[in-house]
């Protein structure tokens, strides 16, 4: 089945300079009771974003109208903890197309790639620079190109290349799906089982 295609974006960004953001913060467990993939964006960062009565917390970046955009820029070890794919669904459902950090947790990275949400891993220095640029200009525009694998601060032209698994890159830029790929090799799976 075709999935969302991602090749290139150019947008303002939302900064979240906190390290070790775990998937329990991205989407708390009590919101995992849904049985569909939709609607998780409403509860993205729920307990950082809303108080116990459901009122927006003014000091949280998603409630600050100064910041908007399709890229979330976050501190290192983003997405650690629980394997819940709901975290990737919540970020994508809210409207993010990419997350930039200096380090991603393994399972989150895989889940994001399976949902057309691009995890872009940059150096510590580039991440620091991004936060400084956003601090100086909240509307600073960032360009991410998956085809040529670079991230660029548009105003200054400073850029860095990033790694992505070539197979997952092909999936994201063409909308391919893992299940279709394995099903195309089904004979090999059956041969493997027969030989066991």
């Amino acid at each position, binding site marked *: 089945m075709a999935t969302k295609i991602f090749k290139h974006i150019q947008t303002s960004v939302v900064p979240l300079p906190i390290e070790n953001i775990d998937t*329990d913060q991205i989407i708390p*467990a009590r919101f995992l*009771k*849904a049985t569909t993939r939709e609607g998780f964006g409403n509860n993205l960062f729920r*307990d950082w974003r809303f108080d*116990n009565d459901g009122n927006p917390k003014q000091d949280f970046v998603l409630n600050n109208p100064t910041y908007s955009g399709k890229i979330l820029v976050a501190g290192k070890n983003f997405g650690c903890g629980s394997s819940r*794919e709901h975290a990737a669904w919540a970020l994508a459902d809210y409207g993010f197309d990419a997350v930039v950090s200096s380090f991603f947790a393994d*399972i989150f990275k895989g889940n994001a790639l399976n949902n057309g949400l691009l995890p872009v891993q940059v150096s510590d220095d580039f991440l620091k620079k991004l936060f400084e640029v956003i601090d100086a200009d909240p509307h600073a525009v960032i360009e991410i190109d998956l085809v040529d694998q670079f991230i660029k601060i548009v105003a200054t032209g400073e850029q860095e290349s990033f790694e992505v698994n070539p*197979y997952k890159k092909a999936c994201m830029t063409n909308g391919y799906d893992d299940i279709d790929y*394995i099903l195309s090799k089904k004979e090999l799976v059956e041969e493997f089982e027969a030989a066991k």
Partner: protein
Amino acid sequence: MGQTLFDKIWDAHVVSSNEGFPDILYIDTHFIHEVTSPQAFDGLRNRGLPVFRPQQTVATADHNVPTWDQHLPIKEELSRYQVDMLTKNCAEFGIELYGLGHPFQGIVHVIGPELGITRPGGTYVCGDSHTSTHGAFGAIAFGIGTSQVEQVMATQCLLQSRPKRMKIEVNGKLQNGVGAKDIILYIISKISAAGGTGYAVEYAGDTISGLSMEGRMTICNMSIEMGARCGLIAPDETTINYVKGREFAPKGEEWDKAVAYWQTLYSDEDADFDSVLSFKAEDIEPMITYGTNPGMGIGVTQHVPETASFEAKEQGSYKKALDYMGLHDDEQLLGKPIDYVFIGSCTNSRIEDLRQVAEFVKGRHKADNVTVWVVPGSKQVQEQAIREGLDKIFDAAGFPLREPGCSACLGMNEDKIPAGKYCVSTSNRNFEGRQGPNSRTFLASPLTAAASAITGVVTDIRTFLKEEELV
């Protein structure tokens, strides 16, 4: 060049390996539960696909279930709906379900091993990050997202790139009162919550091989808390004796054949690891966490680190964690009043954990300021505890034995720690809000949790053990 244990198992499960592509890895058993499976079943329906190997798929209800009055319908509507959905999906796709009321029901990472489904040399996945637990048997086991749950349902395979290999050795004699949970909390405190990311971690050394299977499962369970893809321990006599005779363990000739294979499962002496770390058992104190990720742990007698001891860019996150926990720089946790004690979760809810706690609390009673929940990992653990009379010891101590489920580890059911309250918990995560909105978690071993329940404050179990020696 010799091979690592991990590579031997991986290579035995590669269906297809192509340059530039992840390997297609065959999965022996797929465990599923109510929370991360419904969207995968929907995906199969949308594609018009069956579950490819339903007999290699095992389901249970654990994350959402109440741990009291399980014979009654689930009160919470969304939880009930999700559990009902699992029942319907399993019936439609021909999957065996150990649901509520079934004698095999329980936390997915407790039932797999206790039923003899988890075995050395196998590959196991589940839409739950603590699937790393099963690696204690010398197996490759890891958590996956729901798209991958659908992938395994559709193909019994998973696309995976081979991770790097790390060996973590622990050698020496543990202090009295220090156990598997302290070992793993210590390791994570040393290498951080991201220190294992990208690696399959093999635990080795005489301290590790001296642990029971329950202890080994506690260690492997928390591999994900240092970011590792999986954790594993070479199978030995302890492993083989544990598996033998269990419900779904091989029998007769099949058993002999299996054991002969399992005995080949170890890292060769000249095997190449990408990273090797060594720790001394003697250096490990009873551990406790003070922060909001499992890497933020200290020996129970130590003080919370000072903000200034961190690099400037890390100080903001550190201060946020301390503020959340209501702690300050250099504070000592020892003697700090607590409100709740949770003994349970896929980390520490097995019969050995309950026996250890019961032995300690026998003849003692919890402090008035503390609420204690003991949640067995499975129906079989619960029944065994009752057969051994542990429930009576727990009752007398004010530690009611509840019914099996994930419970207050993640607070998806009613078992939530209230806002602002402190809980000494034997579970695996101290993230903000993990045990309930604004709850505050101190992760520790079952013995530390039990001792703290008795005194009502964070306690060094060794002070009790010393008193006992004097008597």
